[in-house]
């Protein structure tokens, strides 16, 4: 009888540099995961995730770095912090998701949801320039760059008329103190990327 059709994989025989990296950099021990699935059960967006939080942990154990850095879940995770609160072992999954997203972004992986990545970048550049986020110009710039010129036009006008979208917002005076933070982010990106 041919018994080779299914050979179970033994996780203790798999080397995962990523798991070691996460342990070292973030101090998160994935081995404490009991595979109970409470993280995925509570996740608001699990129904649209390509890999649910529990699978993400398994992929880290398997060392499947490429899959993790290109997965869609990175860009639709809400950072709602429900998974970590429900984890009996306290595995900080949102922190791991941030770490993976940061790495994917730094190493130039094409995000599966370019609009989400672009929105984050535009918001950061807004803070870099003014120290604070001004919502109306941010929305306008986002719509122009994604070529969705009519997106939320009616809503935007209604909100503008309600005074909810002032065209100018406050600005930080000591901008050098803010710029230095962004400069060191760029230096880190170059060094690691």
């Amino acid at each position: 009888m041919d018994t080779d059709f299914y050979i179970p994989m033994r996780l203790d025989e798999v080397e995962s540099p990523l798991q070691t990296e996460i342990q070292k950099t973030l101090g998160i021990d994935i081995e404490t995961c009991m595979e109970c699935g409470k993280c995925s059960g509570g996740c608001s967006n699990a129904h649209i995730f390509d890999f649910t939080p529990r699978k993400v942990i398994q992929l880290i154990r398997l060392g499947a770095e490429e899959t993790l850095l290109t997965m869609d879940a990175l860009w639709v995770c809400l950072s709602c912090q429900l998974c970590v609160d429900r984890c009996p072992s306290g595995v900080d999954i949102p922190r791991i998701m941030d770490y993976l997203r940061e790495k994917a972004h730094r190493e130039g992986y094409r995000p599966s949801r370019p609009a989400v990545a672009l929105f984050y970048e535009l918001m950061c550049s807004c803070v870099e320039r003014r120290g604070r986020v001004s919502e109306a110009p941010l929305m306008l710039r986002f719509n122009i760059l994604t070529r969705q010129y009519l997106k939320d036009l009616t809503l935007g006008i209604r909100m503008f008329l309600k005074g909810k979208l002032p065209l100018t917002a406050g600005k930080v005076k000591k901008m050098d103190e803010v710029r230095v933070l962004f400069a060191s982010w760029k230096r880190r990106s170059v060094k690691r990327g």
Partner: protein
Amino acid sequence: MIVAYYPGCSLEGVAREYDRSARLVCDRLGFGLQEVPDWNCCGATAAHSLDHELTRGLSARNLAIVGRMNLATVTTPCPGCSIRLKGAAMEAKKESGAPEVMHLLQLLTEAAGTEKIASSVIKPLGGLRLAAYYGCLVTRPRAVARFDDPEQPRSMDRILQALGAETVDWSHKAECCGGAFAASETSIVVDLGGQVLEAARQAGAEALAVACPMCQVNLDTRQWEVESTRGVRYDLPVFYFTQLMGLAYGFTNRAMGLKRLLVNPLPLLKRKGIL
């Protein structure tokens, strides 16, 4: 009690009525709010999504300014800002003393208390049936937020009850509304926000009370999209809890900025004899 006040970017923009009502209500309760001078954005979802050290650095600058104000406590009405500041304060505390960071709901619960909140009521919100909606970051992650129960939060319910309103028991108090995806992945907000609105309706709520600019914007400004997607008319006004406190304390609807809400709350308030 003098407290440092960090408004955050939304409170200068889409949530100005939250800022105004929070300041008036705090003043009425005897809190002297001193705005953190020259504060910067906490980086919100964008910064922590792209770089951990950047998000820490942005909040560290704000905490350093609070430190120079010589105040022990800093409060912010925005849960996003509060969790970023709390996270940075936890890291800083390992080295030296950092100020105590409190979300506004936490400050009012722990430093004022429901008795004091109730004693200032002039016009009780009798007959108003509300769903208190906490969202994510007021109570989560629990190790950082260290406030209320992350699964069954009650602090806002108690405040609303102290104002004379009725609060409903419901399932989606601490579920996510779709957070920062309003512009970039709108369908997520329409989906998750829709679930929150549906749960509130099924529980018999006549309006929602929130403590987060993002929750308010998602549930209020996207409500018509939820209605057209689900084919259900909700017509649920989404108040900041401070606006409701202000109404009970006798402030006018103008002072509380009620006209800035997209789902018009005036018919409901008139029906209940509150306005």
